[in-house]
């Protein structure tokens, strides 16, 4: 039994979370550094995983299997395919930046004396409420659970962490809201808890319906092990009735569609991203939501190929609606973070589209999209966060001419925006174009409609940039400081990565292609042949 690498990647941040939470109240900075170190160490482990993983090799590698709850047929069964590795890397990569970006977000604000007991000086003395420690501990806890849900090849195991990650997320959203809020601390608090509850209820409802499906799956398949079930289905020794399969598919898909989020189940995202601090917003959209799309690719298609095909038309339509609808709403937003949220909804539409057009370009594109969208949104959102924390407002109208006073900030913001509108040469272009081609190859109309998304993306991004960064400088912004070293350290690597993956995505595609081949064989689909076999 070799070293349980995958388990380690998850256990490390979990322990880190506990340790961070245990740091005494006074030693706030220590907690921050601890969290940062842990996240970096996790990144290292993830890198090791990526190195040990052979793209050409077996479908699931570095597998580990321990009995956990035999009574439920649940095993601690981990394993990664290319897609898993890619997303594992993304997660492990983003968390350090999130930690670094959120460095001061959870410091007890001087204005409203420590977020604890409303003005009890006596109690503040022996106040045991430690927001900072909690904040970073929760982030690490989320990381651990997300990583596990990327690694789990046991449906039940996946489900457990899919659900459990809601709780720390919920506290992150509800407990550490965006200080830059119109309407004072009171309004902020109510809005925040509304957003948190909305987030939790949406996802919990989806998750519980999925629970029914999970149970149903066990009744139908007698096992939770994804590889076993897939193999059994392929070999035909496991027969699900058509209706059973469809119902189970719906149960799973619903949960993932809420998480993803797919129109019309998306409305929790803008609230959550708007109210949460920028790093947490990144955590939501760049990391946690990816679990949803990832799960569609791995579980919906893997477990219920027939039902997936059956549902494809509807899903495609919903995805298209998400793309256009999200983009249009992004244009209509007055709040920077909500704008980014709707943009993300549009992008998730692309991802889901890529997954369900059932072409290898589409699915590779979707997978790359998950990674690239993670990075690009992180870049854009974090810079936006830095901007917001400077001005103390989220309203686009409160900005203008920032480019003049803080050129570096504006520049990075622009690059993030260009990535969001998937400019060729930046990573998102590769994935978006693959998705479009993949879609077009099977459903030309769908492809064309989706292409409108790129125009709208340009619209909302450039409008945002124009209104905030260009034009005459607003007097309140005259003294706006440019990016600090810490902030630059967050943004620069992300941008570098965007450019690199845009010019040379080969490492990623090499990782993903075999996995996509497997998925395609799961759903027994082949890419449509080109009309003429061009003279190569």
């Amino acid at each position, binding site marked *: 039994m070799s070293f349980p690498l995958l388990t380690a990647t998850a256990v490390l941040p979990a322990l880190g979370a506990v340790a961070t939470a245990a740091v005494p109240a006074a030693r706030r900075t220590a907690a921050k550094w601890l969290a940062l170190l842990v996240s970096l160490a996790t990144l290292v482990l993830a890198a090791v995983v990526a190195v040990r993983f052979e793209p050409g090799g077996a479908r699931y590698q570095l597998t580990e299997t321990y009995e956990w709850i035999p009574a439920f047929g649940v095993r601690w069964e981990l394993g990664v395919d290319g897609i898993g590795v890619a997303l594992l890397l993304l997660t492990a990569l983003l968390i350090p930046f999130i930690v670094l970006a959120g460095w001061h977000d959870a410091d007890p604000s001087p204005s409203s004396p420590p977020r604890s007991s409303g003005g009890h000086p006596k109690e503040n003395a022996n106040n045991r409420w430690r927001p900072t420690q909690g904040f970073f501990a929760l982030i690490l806890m989320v990381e651990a659970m997300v990583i596990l849900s990327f690694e789990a090849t046991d449906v039940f195991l996946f489900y457990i962490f899919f659900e459990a990650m809601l709780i720390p997320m919920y506290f992150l959203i509800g407990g550490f809201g965006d200080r830059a809020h119109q309407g004072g601390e009171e309004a902020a608090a109510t809005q925040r808890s509304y957003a948190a509850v909305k987030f939790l209820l*949406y996802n919990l409802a989806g998750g519980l319906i999925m629970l029914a499906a999970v149970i149903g799956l066990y009744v139908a398949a007698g096992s939770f092990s994804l590889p076993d079930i897939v193999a059994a289905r392929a070999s035909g020794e496991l027969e699900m009735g058509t209706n059973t399969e469809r119902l189970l598919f719906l149960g799973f898909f619903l949960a993932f569609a809420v998480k993803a989020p797919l*129109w*019309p189940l*998306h*409305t929790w995202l803008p609230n959550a991203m708007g109210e949460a601090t920028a790093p947490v917003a990144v955590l939501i959209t760049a990391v946690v939501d990816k679990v949803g799309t990832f799960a569609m690719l791995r579980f919906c298609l893997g477990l219920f190929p027939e039902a997936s095909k059956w549902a494809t038309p509807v899903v495609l339509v919903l995805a298209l609606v998400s793309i256009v609808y999200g983009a*249009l709403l992004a*244009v*209509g937003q007055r709040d920077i973070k909500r704008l980014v949220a709707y943009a993300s909804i549009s992008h998730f539409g692309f991802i889901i589209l890529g997954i369900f057009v059932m072409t*290898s*370009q589409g699915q*590779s*594109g979707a997978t790359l999209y998950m990674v690239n969208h993670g990075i690009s949104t992180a870049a854009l959102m974090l810079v936006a966060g830095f901007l917001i924390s400077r001005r103390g407002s989220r309203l686009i109208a409160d900005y203008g001419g920032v*480019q*003049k006073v803080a050129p570096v900030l504006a*520049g990075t913001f622009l690059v993030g925006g*260009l990535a969001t509108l998937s*400019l*060729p*040469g930046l990573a998102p*272009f590769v994935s978006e*174009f*693959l998705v*479009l*081609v993949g879609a*077009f*190859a099977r459903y*030309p109309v769908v*492809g*064309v409609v989706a*292409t*409108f998304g*790129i*125009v709208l993306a*340009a619209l909302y991004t*450039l*409008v945002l940039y*124009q209104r905030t*960064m*260009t*034009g*005459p*400088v607003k007097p309140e912004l005259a003294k706006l400081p440019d990016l600090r070293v810490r902030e630059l350290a967050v943004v620069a690597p992300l941008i570098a990565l965007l450019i690199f993956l845009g*010019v*040379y*995505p*080969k490492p990623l*595609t*090499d990782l993903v*292609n075999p996995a*996509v*081949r497997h998925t395609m064989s799961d759903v027994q689909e082949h*890419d*449509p042949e*080109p*009309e*003429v*076999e*061009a*003279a*190569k």
Partner: protein
Amino acid sequence: MENLIAPLIAAPLLGAAVLLCGGRRLDKAGHWIGTALAVASFVLGAVLFAGLLGRGAEDRTLVQHLFSWIPVEGFQADVAFRLDQLSMTFVLLITGVGSLIHVYSIGYMEHDERRRRFFGYLNLFLAAMLILVLADNYLLLYLGWEGVGLASYLLIGFWQHKPSAATAAKKAFLVNRVGDMGLSIAIMLMFTTFGTFAFTPVLGSVGETGEGTLTAIALMLLLAACGKSAQVPLQSWLGDAMEGPTPVSALIHAATMVTAGVYLIVRSGAIFNAAPDAQLVVTVVGAVTLIFGAIVGCAKDDIKKALAGSTMSQIGYMVLAAGLGPIGYAVAIMHLVTHGFFKAGLFLGAGSVMHGMNDEVDMRRYGGLRKYMPVTFVTFGLGYLAIIGFPGLSGFFSKDLIIESAFAKGGVQGWILGTVTLVGAGITAFYMTRVMLMTFFGEERWRNLPAASPDAPDVEPAADHGGVPHPHESPKVMTVPMIVLAFGSVFAGAFFGIGERFVHWLEPVTAYEHGHPPVSALTVTAATVTVMVIGVGLAWLQYGRRPVPVVAPRGSLLTRAARRDLLQDDFNHVVLVRGGEHLTRSLVYVDHTLVDGVVNGTAAGVGGLSSRMRRLQNGFARSYAVSMFGGTALLVAATLLMRAV
């Protein structure tokens, strides 16, 4: 030798990277670095050109395969470059004119504290443009295509503190995006049809697929071309693009980028040849734009906007020519090159004028400047003669060829197109003469300017420009490039045209075939010259003989429409902008009330149900007992019923 292609692109790219990431410490040397790298890439281009000349006409195609860009199942996109006569021509044009304009900018942007960044953007543009013309497949071309779009966005909006500039930049990018949609759809079509989008296989196997597909592809490519080359209906951005610094207008919006559309069409010639319907559309678009641009050019008082209109119209010529098929491709490119010379020269001249006139752009506030800036006057004048097709100068050769080819299209189409091009030539002569006269001749209107008068709100009070200007000649660093370009605009045409040197050079790529106009070439030439003279005469009658009012007269309906770009902007504003705003606003409402409302409604419903059910819990033990009793009764009844059924 093909290994030189990558460095050719890398040089300006490096410049861009260094200048943009370098930070303030490079402010001192920034412009020199930029210029040096631009020149370097020109030198490399020259070397390659020499190399090509050293080869036989047939194997003048170099391919450099760098690496595999996006390797995915059944999808191959490589970073590979292809240098043939066509791209070579462009390389020389881009790097040559580019370098000149770099030099020019050193002087022009001297007082701008963000000069380093400006040069960074210029280098970025060069790199992107080179990628565009050197790409070996359509996807990589797309990369360059959007790259130049980005550079143009950054440069148009270079003076971001001016809202007008920012808006113009955004507009340019968005309109181009619409065109890009066309390009990406075209690429998808190629992929699904041919399984690839590299030039050789696609263009090689055109014959194996139906005309319908090809027409679709061609039209999509045309859409892209319209966006980039400011052809109707996507031309609206070019006028506003003049918000950018003048060197930018010269390089990007006159000489190089806007001609990318022509390049795309010529490059995809094989597809268009197989899709005659599409070709017809191309010619129509070209013809319409030709007239459209010309008319706009006649009405504008802003010197740069007038030139922009002319650019539009000249590119219309090229597109029209490209639409003619093998007869026209080479001709189109030839006009493109010559136009590159004289239009760049004209813009630089305009820039020089503005430089000397405190950035005044309104020609009605010029006049009689020839004494004050002789070099500018001469170079500008040569460019002017070239563009109106004065016999012997470069414009004469290229435009004349286009007109011939138009007639040579044959049949009714031929006659129509030919006439249009002729008329266009006339109008060109008219508006260029107008510019010439208003700027360099007549009384010196700038001496006594009126204050802003309510009846003419578009007239800015002179105070804005720092009192009465003191027109003066620009420094050497600016005049030298102008001189060089003027040189080009004088002799390039003859050099290319005599003995059809140019078309033969391009023949291997664009398969030139000599057109046979229904009337002899001589007649056509004669007609052209006559029309040109008429145009000049009319212009002189209107602007030479009588003094030009400082405040623009109200003018005829057409004039007023032309001043507003023939109302196309208003149309866009009403239909797209307003409509879009309404759409988004209503959608926001829908999202909040409907989509969200459903969920909140459900929640509220459950809550209401809950509070209604609570009332049953009325605290009276006896009512609890009743419910128990009733429950028992139900239980019993149900059990018995179960047995009954």
